């Protein structure tokens, strides 16, 4: 059963003092050497949450009351805990770790998992890769331990339970995890751990020796599942923080690059490389992300999308042009990558999408799609979706410009409608004989005689759609021609109690 597991290799990173390391990164002036801790107040009691090495060395432990801790270590520096900030930092580190593998996942609250299957040889082996990751984290001021194993949960348990950053062979999961303490390896709730300890079960090996059925009855199936994943018997899935790209191109920069010209040159090289790969695979892409790793460990992304699958470097390049200004190189980028997502078979995808056949039309639709892509970088672009509704504001909806426009519903354009519509109808003053047609109209302070009137056309609100907007009242629409020849579309809003006239559009 052990051998049935996929022959993957996983690297786990454990960041024991992420919360305090993060604080020191943000505030470098926090006393060096002084113990640092974060606190929170669950249930009104203020207790320690996370400690750095110095605080732990001073005899403090998580869960201790704040007053006790301050009595033990009078020079303790305290900061309120920020769980969201810690989670965001962990997520950021998971993105950073994509320099080693495209598939990286979170192991909250303080761990990362990397699927390094087939990636290690690029870094000179698994041990060298692990050392490189730990070195880089260490230089960034983040304490870390790591392990490489044939299953993600095993690696995570080893990273927590051992201090020597081991690299273990696939298939030996049960053997290497057996001596680990249960609490560190399985990460059980405190109550379960105490119960197990009372029974004399302290190490993973002790549990493995027990018959399974009574364990499940006593402690639940969850315990056995955790045990199985850690010892490599069960599956331990890794959920990537970012879905893995379908094709990538990467480039390591020997010197950190800072200038826009250098970034442009690097991007050109990457686009050419990506084009070659897409072409070899017979694919085009609709979503390309540029990832840039900064020297100080930050990672920045710029994404573009195209309406039709493309692999043309010139076109993709122009789309990136508008966005590259958002990159902040700081001290420079040391590594850049392009990731292609949403890839499609090129030839088939385009024509099917636009509903157009024929070879010679392909070039035209591609040119149109390219100009739409370019426009969307700076301005709003949409097509018009005709909607079957008599209510004027609702008869038109926006559609993605790359989508095909369905046929208009019957009678959609049959009614006389204005060519220009006011987004918010403008108030008017209208005079007329009694309830009859209007004869005089006052707009923006000037009076206009009405020469011709057509109407009224009465529109009832769509009560089955307007439940949320009961203020919508029926409208009597008139088409009027002023003495100057101008034609307007006005309506009488028959709201309860206060009917009023409004200008809604300009007729031809």
């Amino acid at each position: 059963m052990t051998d049935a597991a996929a022959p993957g290799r996983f690297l786990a990173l454990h960041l024991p003092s992420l919360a305090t390391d993060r604080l020191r990164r943000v505030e470098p002036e926090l006393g060096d050497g002084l113990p640092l801790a974060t606190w929170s107040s669950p249930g009104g009691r203020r207790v320690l949450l996370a400690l750095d090495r110095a605080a732990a060395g001073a005899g403090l432990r998580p869960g201790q009351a704040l007053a006790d801790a301050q009595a033990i270590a009078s020079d303790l520096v305290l900061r309120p805990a920020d769980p969201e900030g810690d989670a965001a930092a962990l997520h950021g580190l998971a993105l950073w770790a994509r320099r080693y593998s495209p598939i990286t996942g979170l192991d909250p609250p303080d761990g990362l998992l990397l699927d390094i299957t087939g990636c290690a040889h690029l870094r000179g082996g698994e041990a060298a890769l692990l050392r490189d990751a730990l070195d880089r984290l260490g230089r960034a001021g983040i304490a870390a331990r790591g392990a490489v194993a044939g299953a993600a949960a095993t690696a995570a348990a080893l990273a927590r339970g051992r201090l020597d950053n081991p690299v273990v062979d696939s298939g030996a999961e049960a053997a290497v995890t057996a001596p680990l303490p249960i609490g560190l390896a399985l990460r059980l709730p405190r109550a379960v751990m105490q119960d197990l300890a009372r029974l004399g079960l302290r190490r993973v090996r002790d549990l493995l020796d027990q018959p399974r059925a009574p364990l499940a009855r006593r402690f639940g199936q969850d315990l056995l599942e955790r045990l199985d994943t850690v010892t490599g018997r069960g599956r331990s899935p890794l959920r990537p923080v970012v879905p893995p790209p379908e094709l990538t191109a990467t480039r390591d920069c020997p010197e950190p690059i800072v200038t826009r010209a250098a970034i442009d040159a690097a991007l050109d090289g990457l686009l050419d490389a990506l084009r070659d790969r897409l072409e070899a695979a017979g694919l085009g892409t609709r979503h390309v992300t540029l990832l840039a790793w900064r020297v100080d460990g930050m990672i920045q992304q710029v994404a573009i999308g195209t309406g039709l699958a493309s692999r043309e470097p010139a076109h993709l390049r122009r789309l990136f042009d508008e966005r590259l200004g958002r990159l902040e190189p700081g001290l420079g980028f040391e590594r850049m990558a392009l990731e292609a997502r949403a890839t499609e078979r090129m030839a088939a995808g385009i024509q099917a999408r636009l509903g157009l056949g024929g070879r010679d039309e392909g070039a035209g639709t591609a040119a149109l799609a390219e100009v739409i892509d370019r426009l969307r970088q700076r301005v709003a672009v949409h097509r018009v979706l005709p909607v079957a509704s008599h209510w004027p504001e609702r008869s038109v909806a926006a559609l993605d410009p790359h989508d095909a426009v369905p046929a208009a519903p019957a009678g959609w354009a049959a009614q006389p409608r204005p060519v220009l519509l006011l987004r918010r109808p403008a108030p008017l003053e209208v005079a007329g004989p009694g309830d009859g047609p209007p004869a005089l109209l006052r707009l923006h302070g000037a009076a206009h005689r009405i020469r011709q009137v057509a109407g009224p056309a009465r529109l009832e609100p769509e009560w089955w759609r307007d439940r949320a907007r009961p203020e919508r009242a029926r409208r009597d629409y008139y088409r009027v021609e002023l003495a100057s020849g101008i034609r307007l579309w006005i309506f009488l809003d028959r709201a309860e109690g206060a009917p009023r006239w409004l200008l809604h559009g300009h007729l031809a």
Partner: protein
Amino acid sequence: MNVPLDREAVLASLRARVARLEGGGGPQHEAPVVPLCDGLPMPGLARGAVHEVLATSPGCGVAFCTVLLARTGGTVFWIAAGRDGTSAWPQGLAAFGLTPARLILVRAEGWVDALWAMEEVLRCPTVTGALLAVTGSPPGIDARLDLTATRRLQLAAEAGGALGLLLRPDTVAAAPTAASTRWRIGSLGGENGLDDPCWRLELLRMRGGRPGGPWAVTWRAAEGRLEPGRCDTDRAGSTAREALA
């Protein structure tokens, strides 16, 4: 220079080069045109050029441009700038022949973006028509829509072959532009109903041609065509100019 010169060949190539540089300045009737109206001395508006339309009232200008764009026969971009409170209404445009399937609406936040978008669109060979709407009268628009900007648009249209339209309100002093033609359109009210609008059309300026008009034209919605003459006059016997006089 030791290469013997063929004077005739040199002259011919220079002439061709001048003609290329002048672009739309050549004889207009050679370029394919978008037909306008049968009875007028003008065959229509040239493709691959930018035309300016001054509208005395918003509705008739939009409708007139819609008729022209619909007659280009392909995909059409409608570019509006800023938030002026009105928007082209596709349901109304459809009555002038422009169906939603062929229409792409663009809204830019500022004038620079709108001009840029217009230029990009005009350069695309697949696009047959594009309109840049200057609705309302934003301050400083005459400064933006100057000779340089319109010259760029004109060159873009020549490169792409589309019909470019600049729709703007008829202000007292519209600054000169590099557009091929400048038209003015206004409403002529009728006395016989509100269905078929009647317009007063005037060619104010034309590069390499003479201004003309005013003419009266009527849009026949049922037949989908423009015809000369006022809607309420006897169509058979009177020319457009007489009808207006």
